[in-house]
């Protein structure tokens, strides 16, 4: 009895050690190449740090105080939420619908899957240039086609009220294929027998979706939601290329503002401060989501 327990304990211990061994390579890389720089920039957020000069002076909480009184920071925070609230739900629902449809036994599903994935693999820098050109209300292709059928094209990117919706649309267009593929991989790992059982019980397609697919897709959905939220709160590329944060700061998001502070104003100390505000926000939102999905699992 005693011996058996010992063996069991040593086995458990060995498994635990194995776990650390499995994590070790990834963790080493993270600590060295991401966490160390994160700590470094955290320290720098207490400094008046102009990137050009080699010296930085300690200024305590000044950067943080400035941030609280910086209307551009609050505006960027508001815009970031705006983007996130538009992009996350619409993007995820479209991805899920597409995944469900192309997961059916329909003809040409592979072609559709490939088409929807195309925007994901194209670099944002080029995509944004193309969209800006196409959306141009004066010489763009879309406005020309609209004018042929008597429709008027709106100057999306030039209107402070419409620029953000346009950025959200292009982002959804760009990203929907990726979450579709993640959902697809999730759908593929649902065993067909669950559906058989549901059918025998007389469940309709819709019921099957809500009572079989969705619950079994939970861990996939958790991943998609958490990652999409993290990604959306750090939106940068599309804003940078399509609007540069304008017109009138209506699309300036936090990361766009951080970039601007660091690499246009060269004020990296303050840039780090704003990055930490974003960090706290992300950490908070992510932990809440992890809790929520864990409770559901």
């Amino acid at each position, binding site marked *: 009895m005693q011996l058996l327990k010992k063996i069991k304990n040593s086995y458990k211990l060995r498994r635990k050690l194995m776990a650390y061994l499995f994590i070790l390579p990834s963790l080493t890389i993270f600590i060295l190449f991401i966490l*160390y720089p994160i700590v470094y920039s955290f320290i720098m957020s207490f400094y008046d740090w102009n990137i050009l000069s080699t010296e930085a002076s300690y200024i305590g909480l000044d950067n943080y105080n400035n941030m609280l009184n910086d209307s551009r920071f609050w505006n960027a925070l508001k815009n970031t939420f705006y983007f996130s609230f538009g992009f996350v739900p619409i993007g995820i629902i479209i991805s899920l619908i597409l995944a469900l449809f192309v997961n059916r036994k329909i003809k040409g599903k592979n072609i559709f899957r490939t088409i929807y994935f195309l925007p994901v693999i194209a670099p944002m820098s080029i995509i944004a240039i193309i969209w800006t050109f196409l959306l141009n209300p004066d010489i763009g292709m879309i406005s020309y086609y609209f004018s042929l059928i008597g429709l008027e094209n709106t100057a999306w990117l030039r209107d402070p009220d419409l620029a953000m919706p346009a950025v959200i649309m292009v982002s959804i267009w760009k990203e929907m294929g990726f979450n579709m593929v993640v959902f697809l*991989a999730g759908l593929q790992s649902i065993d067909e027998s669950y559906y058989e059982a549901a059918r025998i019980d007389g469940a309709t397609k819709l019921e099957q979706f809500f009572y079989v697919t969705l619950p079994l897709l939970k861990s996939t959905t958790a991943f998609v939601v958490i990652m999409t939220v993290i990604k959306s709160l750090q939106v940068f590329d599309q804003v940078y290329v399509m609007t540069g944060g304008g017109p009138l700061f209506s699309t300036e998001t936090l990361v766009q503002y951080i970039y601007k502070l660091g690499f246009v104003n060269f004020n990296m100390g303050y840039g780090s401060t704003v990055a930490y505000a974003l960090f706290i926000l992300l950490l908070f939102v992510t932990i809440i989501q992890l809790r929520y999905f864990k409770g559901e699992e």
Partner: protein
Amino acid sequence: MKLTNSLIYIFLFIIAVVTLFPFIWMFFTSFKVEADILAYPPSLIPRTFSLRSYLEIWNSIPFFRLFVNTVIFSVGVTFISVILDSMAAYAFARIDFPFKNILFIIVLVTLMIPFQVILIPLFKLLYELNWLNTYLGLIVPRASSAFGIFLLRQFFVKIPYALEDAARIDGCSEFTIFRKIIMPLSKPALATIAIFHFMYNWNDFLWPMVITNSMSMRTLPVGLALFRGEHVIEYGMLTAGAVLALLPIILVYLYAQKYFVQGIALTGLKG
């Protein structure tokens, strides 16, 4: 049933057109002469078909060299990262160990700071390691990602324990279970994450741009950026380059796609 199917087709078709349009424009633009690109009224189909952009791009940038570097960089990262990510994901998904939750949050924390902010300390570190302008410096910092660990963890938790328990009774080691049972059952997820790493690094611009110091180490996106002038964009070359750079990823995607459709035959595990 018929009706639903046709409705679905219509829906899929409309989305497909919207999705494809910019690519069609890009494709045709790469065959246009510069004057035709800016002409008004615009024409989707080139008024004169020209291969000029495709011919000139070879002289204009060292396309082949950039291509090779991009392959080394993105394949290197993908290969190592898929292995490291899945190992870490396995531990997080299937083993209970102290500080697991904290460690998992620490992994996710790596996604929460914008790259622009850690760029300078990271650069300093690579400089001190003497890794600037090397493949090592390009690949190693990217060789594992929280994104991949998280995605794979979500798939690994779903795999039933039956097979694993049987293997354990047979005396299989932890590593064998990981390699012989979990990995083969997770092909769709592994294919997804491989595709993700491949295309993310294939397209990445800022990282290779900052880390490398010479054209001989550069990657394709960095090369294509040369057609984006401050005032004048060379649309012809840019689109031709983009078309050429897209083709390999499309091929990789088509190849990986067969693992998505394959699914997992879990049925056999139940008995």
